[in-house]
């Protein structure tokens, strides 16, 4: 696609989508934990062309994360056990928010906690901060009060966390679902009941790698989260299921690399998408997806990209 063709016609392509009250100029976002605090990508791309940026998960207090090794490549994917290393909500507000505001793109803040209480407190702390477009609640973390069972695997717990966040902030709240459950639609409905404005899915599948030479787990944390193209078929199916089960928008995540992948997730029912691991392989992946999707909307003479959402044809 020639950049010239693109520029001359960009104005005619309607790529806008809405996630609750959040209006995005296009449905392409970056996934939490794969795009740093945005800044890291400034040398490689025009961040402001993205629909939104989701920052690394923020906890109430700073966390140094898991010991190394934290990552390992797997067939068409990678496992990570970063352990939620982050600067904590205070330093996030004082150091990261100002820089993020400068890059002129909606910022979604991904948050996590060990107790419902912690989720409430982070949210309260973020409530008055300027420059936050939405909150994304990561409920894949184990609930320390409930013996480590993940919030994301028990509907009632997922609903409770959602409510705790919703009550304390006025910007739209997205809840990010874990795929490691028997029935993800059940969790989707629970967070909808809790008041979520959208659901994001999927987070990583849990996996493990072993080094046959050392006979040890490769990751110091033993288990890690599987991401990348390998998980795309699982993600598409879950997006498709949840989109049919809830009436709030779905944000599709999992192995997305190209414009074609984006289109597939939209057809499956996603209103917006996030690119994760793809950013590591190609830091321009998300900007290229914006370009590609723009061109697709033009080539296919769509009135709006919204025509694609849930447009899967079943015979």
């Amino acid at each position, binding site marked *: 696609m020639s950049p010239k063709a693109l520029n001359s016609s960009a104005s005619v392509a309607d790529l806008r989508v809405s996630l609750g009250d959040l209006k995005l100029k296009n449905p392409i976002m970056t996934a939490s*934990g*794969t*795009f*740093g605090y945005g800044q*890291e*990508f400034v*040398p*490689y*791309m*025009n961040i402001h062309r993205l629909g939104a940026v989701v920052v*690394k998960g923020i906890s109430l207090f700073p966390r*140094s*994360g898991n*010991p*190394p*090794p*934290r*990552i*390992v*490549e797997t*067939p*068409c*994917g*990678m496992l*990570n056990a*970063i352990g939620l*290393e982050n600067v904590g909500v205070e330093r996030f507000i004082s150091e990261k928010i100002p820089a993020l505001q400068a890059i002129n793109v909606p910022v979604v803040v991904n948050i996590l906690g060990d107790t419902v209480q912690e989720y409430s407190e982070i949210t309260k702390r973020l409530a008055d901060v300027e420059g936050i477009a939405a909150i994304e609640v990561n409920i894949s973390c184990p609930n320390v009060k409930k013996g480590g069972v993940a919030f994301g695997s028990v509907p009632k717990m997922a609903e409770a966390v959602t409510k705790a966040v919703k009550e304390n902030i006025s910007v739209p709240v997205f809840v990010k679902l874990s795929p490691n459950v028997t029935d993800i639609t059940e969790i989707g409905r629970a967070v909808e009941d809790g008041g979520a404005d959208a659901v994001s899915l999927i987070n990583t599948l849990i996996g493990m790698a072993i080094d046959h030479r050392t006979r040890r787990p490769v990751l110091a944390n033993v288990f890690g989260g599987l991401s*990348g*193209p390998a998980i795309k078929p699982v993600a598409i199916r879950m997006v498709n299921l949840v989109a049919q089960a809830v009436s709030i928008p779905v944000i599709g995540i999992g192995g997305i*690399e190209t414009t074609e992948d984006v289109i597939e997730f939209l057809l499956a029912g996603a209103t917006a998408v996030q690119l994760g*691991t793809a*950013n*590591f*392989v*190609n*830091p*321009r992946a998300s900007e290229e997806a914006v370009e590609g999707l723009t061109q697709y909307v033009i080539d296919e003479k769509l009135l709006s990209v919204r025509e694609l959402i849930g447009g899967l044809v079943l015979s």
Partner: protein
Amino acid sequence: MSQIQEKTEIVRIERLTDDVIRITIDAPEIAMSALPGQFVMIRMGNSSDPLLRRPFSISQTSNAGHIQILFKVVGRGTRYLAHCREGEYISVLGPLGQGFKIDMEKTSCLIGGGMGIAPLLFLGKRIRQKGLKVDPIVILGARTRAELLPLLTDFEQLDLKVHAATDDGSLGHHGLVTDVFKTIDPGPDCMTYVCGPKMMMAAVHLYCKKMEYSCQVSVETAMACGMGACLGCIVPAASGGYVHACSDGPVFDAEEIVWEI
């Protein structure tokens, strides 16, 4: 749009030994801005398997806009790279990371082992260009003469005297680079720049500590992004917590990090 990521052409492939290869890549933007100790992340083909880029130190840059990397074939990624042809295009991201901090006031001592020699050539060249009064001391080690010899030549072309050490004694000292280092007196104001196997760097660091020399090391870790985004490439920091090899390093003051020995 920054041109840091490029579709770059492989202009030369040199097979230095059975499994050590030097590739010259036409990457003007990288060549122009790169500093010694920085690295690039290279994509291993168009397939999603292997998925991630692989990191390689920049071993030389030229005014013609070329960069060189020197690598050993150890797995699938490097096997792919070894199989590339001159004229093929590869995707290179860089220059990345924090390079060596050249100290003009001190006697430089460059100590490299195996593929760790790669970034030291670039460093030696830059030090030469800066025209330090005292010639840098260069100590290079590898397994065998066959492996070390082609790497020495580059340094000798810079008119740098190289102290060699090989595991099998087939070239230079029969043993470790640290043994050689201990026989040399660089004077009290010495800055060592070290890159090589972990055990070697730890040994040099320990000796430097004893001698009160300054010591910079270039570390290797698994990396997914190479640009500070994934937080995968950590090294335990002496001050507690972790530093990130790709963005805080790969070159660190040896005192900054924890040496598990």
